[in-house]
């Protein structure tokens, strides 16, 4: 599905990685048993996290076995299964179905439509089992769709709509931990949504699709800002996690929360920096080629400088005009930045209709 919620493998102990993988395999098997081949195709790491989180919290009876499977035909590997791998499988199919349908509505990709129709029947079955969750999901996704189409909303709003979906999915039952799980899910959802936006930004701009980061993309400090925003989400998530009495698999879960979730970010960030470097190099090369004819260039440069100065002068004048306008604006009290007394005085003078 998204695949952002993974472990940071190099820092995981060998045994821990084995445990993580056994839950991943457990989820895969649950998907296959409950929803067949097409269900299995929705397998993602994201929901492995959910299965392990709930397992750590509730410590249910877990069956461990070793199996052979299609992707690893030559070696047997351990599989962990319990009620939560099953639950995660349900959630995974539910989420994949709506995601496909959403993508179909957004981008009209035929493949997505086909896949969504393959999952439709299974989805109805699950929706009957979890009516409240399915309802919330459908409702928020359609709202999200609307909001994205109209644009002009804050990043919190769009990300929050997806966060609310994940919040519902993280709650297995309404008990004393429901609020905490909801909060973890909410900020996880926001993180995933924003990470997805960060990942897709160039493509979205090209296709003129909504992207919460698009307006700031080319501005200075953009990378730092995204990092800060994503960190805020994970901080809320992790804070809530630390409050839960989780001991089982706690280190694996922390590996995901504090490091694994950044794997994809680091990859995208590195790619973007490289592209930036390349673009800068290309620009330099182009400039170098221009400098090949020095004689005419000198004159050109002088001329360019002349116009630059001219521009500068006119710029100055513009600036003055602008500051003049902003002064006037602050005097009329349209913006609150201009000090309270001035505002109130001015408003006294302005007759109100």
């Amino acid at each position, binding site marked *: 599905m998204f695949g952002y919620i993974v472990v940071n493998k190099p*820092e995981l102990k060998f045994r821990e990685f084995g445990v993580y993988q056994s839950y991943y395999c457990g989820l895969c098997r649950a998907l296959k048993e409950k929803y067949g081949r097409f269900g299995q195709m929705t397998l993602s790491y994201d929901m492995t996290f959910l299965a392990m989180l709930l397992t750590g919290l509730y*410590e249910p009876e877990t069956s461990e076995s070793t199996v052979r499977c299609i992707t690893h035909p030559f070696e047997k590997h351990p599989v962990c299964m319990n009620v939560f791998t099953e639950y995660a499988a349900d959630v995974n199919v539910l989420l994949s179905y709506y995601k496909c349908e959403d993508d179909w509505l957004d981008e009209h990709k035929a493949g997505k439509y086909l896949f969504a129709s393959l999952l439709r029947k299974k989805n109805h079955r699950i929706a009957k089992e979890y009516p409240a969750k399915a309802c919330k999901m459908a409702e928020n996704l359609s709202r999200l769709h609307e909001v994205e189409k109209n644009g002009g909303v804050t990043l919190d709003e769009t990300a929050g709509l997806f966060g609310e979906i994940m919040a519902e999915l993280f709650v297995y039952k309404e008990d004393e931990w429901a609020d905490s799980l909801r909060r973890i899910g*909410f900020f996880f959802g926001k993180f995933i949504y924003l990470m997805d936006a960060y990942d897709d930004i160039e493509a979205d701009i090209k296709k003129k699709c909504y992207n919460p980061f698009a307006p700031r993309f080319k501005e200075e400090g953009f990378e730092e800002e995204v990092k800060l925003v994503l*960190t805020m989400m994970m901080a809320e998530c992790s804070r809530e996690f630390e409050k839960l009495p*989780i001991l089982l698999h706690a280190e694996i879960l922390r590996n995901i929360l504090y490091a694994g979730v950044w794997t994809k970010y680091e990859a995208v960030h590195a790619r973007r920096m490289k592209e930036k470097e390349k673009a800068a190099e290309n620009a330099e090369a182009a400039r170098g080629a221009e400098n090949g004819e020095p004689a005419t260039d000198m004159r050109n440069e002088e001329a360019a400088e002349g116009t630059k100065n001219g521009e500068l002068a006119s710029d100055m004048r513009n600036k003055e005009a602008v500051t003049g306008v902003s002064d006037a604006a602050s005097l009329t009290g349209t913006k609150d930045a201009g000090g309270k007394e001035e505002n*109130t005085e001015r408003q*006294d003078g302005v007759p109100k209709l």
Partner: protein
Amino acid sequence: MIDPYGVLGVSRSASDDDIKKAYRKLSRQYHPDANVNNPNKAQAEEKFKQIQQAYRQIMQERERGASGSSGSYYGQEDAEGYDPFGFGGFGGFGGFGGFGGYAGNANRRAAEEDEDSLHLKAAANYINGGHYKEALNVLGTISERGAQWYYYSAIANAGCGNNVQALQYAKQAASMEPGNSAYQRLVQQLESGGSWYTGRQSPYMGMGGMQGNLCNRICLSYLLCSCCSGGCCYMPYGGMYCC
């Protein structure tokens, strides 16, 4: 009031993990499911509730201590079941220092002041009651947006889970009235999560994690080396990389 540490049978200096262990053990022992045939069923259930309450209380106290601020934005007793995300109210909010200063704007037109200040007061009441969405609605109707408006909006947004907007507004309030310590405190509270989080990252990030390209390359080459020899390799700065 009962000492929560006493209920769990741990000392005040116990680690978080020790507390979680103690909680696990006791809650398993007194869980209603485990005491179906117990003649003292009611007592067991009572004890179970006490254990849960104690655990919750300790975690909240510790979180408040860790965030290092008096305001305790994080974690308040259960949020009245109203708020869908269980956002803790602003414990320190009760003080409402800013409110007294309200009469200061007396030279404004009476009718307007009444309306705006009434709305602002209503927003404050909503916030105090944990009704953040309603607070946001009321705040949206106010046209005059001073530092106090940004301050309330920041808190209401934080309560609704809009943490990015909240920080923006809090910073706006603080920059409009730099001398106001409540505004500064709110900014700190909203930012504290980030620094707390990055502080906890290092054991899981490893050497290569966030330290840029060069380090990554070094790690990778070491990783390859150690794969050949099948052992652990030692990083130049004393760390160890196992594979």
